[in-house]
């Protein structure tokens, strides 16, 4: 079918207009649709950024519906970023936003990072001493679980001792911080 406006290009878009209860159907090509203002495209076209914000919106829509009544718009107390603004621009305003929007982030991260929501990688050196210990502790605990399942009790006992030692050191560190 050819475009009803220019009669040159094939009609690829189909609009239904209702004016004063009267329904008219229009079949046009993309160029004419743009010219006549049936559709609005941003000038630079569809960027990765649009794609991302699209993902955010899609993913959180369900959650929002049922939390909408109870929760007012989430807003970061540090930088003023609201959750709807965040969805729109696809960027955080500051580090605190991560905390503010915390409960809504997992589905977004899962989509962007192939199902992952937790960091496993470098930890800042200076700030990270006890974090690094916690990470090791976590690894030992997983190992312990694994060994118990395999009924390798002797090795499990060794790992258990390591866990105890680490926990002791961590407690010391935290007490030291408070002192």
């Amino acid at each position, binding site marked *: 079918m050819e475009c009803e406006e220019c009669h040159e290009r094939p009609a690829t878009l189909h609009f239904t207009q209702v004016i004063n209860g009267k329904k008219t159907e229009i079949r046009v090509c993309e160029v004419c649709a743009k010219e006549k203002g049936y559709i609005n495209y941003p000038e630079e076209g569809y960027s990765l950024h649009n794609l991302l914000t699209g993902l955010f919106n899609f993913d959180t829509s369900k959650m929002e519906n049922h939390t909408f009544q109870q929760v007012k718009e989430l807003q970061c107390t540090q930088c003023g970023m609201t959750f709807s603004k965040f969805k729109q*621009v696809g960027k955080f305003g500051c580090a605190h936003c*991560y905390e503010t929007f915390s409960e809504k982030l997992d589905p977004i*991260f899962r989509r962007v990072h192939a199902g992952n*929501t937790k960091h496993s*990688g470098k930890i800042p050196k200076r700030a990270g001493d006890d974090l690094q210990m916690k990470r090791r502790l976590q690894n030992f605990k997983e190992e312990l679980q694994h060994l118990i399942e395999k009924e390798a009790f002797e090795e499990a006992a060794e790992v258990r001792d390591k866990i105890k030692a680490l926990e002791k050191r961590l407690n010391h560190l935290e007490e030291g911080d408070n002192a």
Partner: protein
Amino acid sequence: MTLEHFMNDAISPWMREEGPDSDIVLSSRIRLARNIANIPYPILAAEEKLADVQRFFQKEYANKSFDQYQAFEFIPIHDLSSIEKRVLVEKHLISPHLTKHTKESAALISENEQVSIMVNEEDHLRIQLYLPGLQLRQTLDKAFEVDDWLEEKVDYAFDEIRGYLTTCPTNVGTGMRASVMMHLPALVMTRQINRMMPAINQLGLVVRGIYGEGSEALGNIFQISNQITLGKSEVDIVEDLESVVNQLIEHERNARNMIKEESSTALEDRIYRSYGVLAYSRIIESKEASNCISNVRLGIDLGIIKNTSRNILNELLVLIQPGFLQHYAKKTLTPKERDVLRASLIRERLQLEK
């Protein structure tokens, strides 16, 4: 200001050394995104805040040296002419983003141009480090050293669960983008690259042409990088990337050998024609130039063209860019004028090899 030396050479000093697999891999790069705790990100921060950040890095790091990286030059982007900005972007020393979004952005670039630290980019800090050829692990180790060096004086925005907190959710976690620049002319000639791209994308990696718009890869140069930054450690990400790159290298080598065996005269013809165009043309557009440069480089790698250094590819590809041409001419040029100057610079550069 010693900005001049960054401007005058199209090729960065570190590129002059040859890295592993340098017949195919031009460079390895690691980029780390970092933010300073308790300061809003550049997209939202007040100008005074960003000016503070800029001043801090100027005071603490300008003209400092670390390890083998000598005399970091502190360059406020605001002070650059538009042509100078373009040259730094064309040399990949700074990102286009850095030149556009805030008045308070700056770059710290090491003398050998191997390390550049962008200040007030999308994140407060973008650390990038290059090595020639395929050596992602080494690049990662070195980038970590620079990261630790900065961290001595900076509190990073970091969370135990989410990792390094970045402006864009696509960078959170490691904040790392590892990438490899590859010259893949034979995979393009045999059209294999189109079949391989979707498979590579499925592995969470991105392939894109650089120097070119959209999907077009001028000069048959591709950049392969990781997409995922959360949930996998930097080392795992780099190893996955490296294994894919190694496969691409193998396929490219096989394709090169196949073309050489099955259509050697046609290949030689193509390479020598390209050489002829570069050596004798008086007007040349960047697209044609890039293709010819790619062919000549392939000729060098296959031993068909002798006594010409491999570096000529990296060098010419920067030399023929609009910003660099205009910097060389010391004035703004129309596209036509650029085509003439481009042809003349390429001829001169080829003469040097003789």
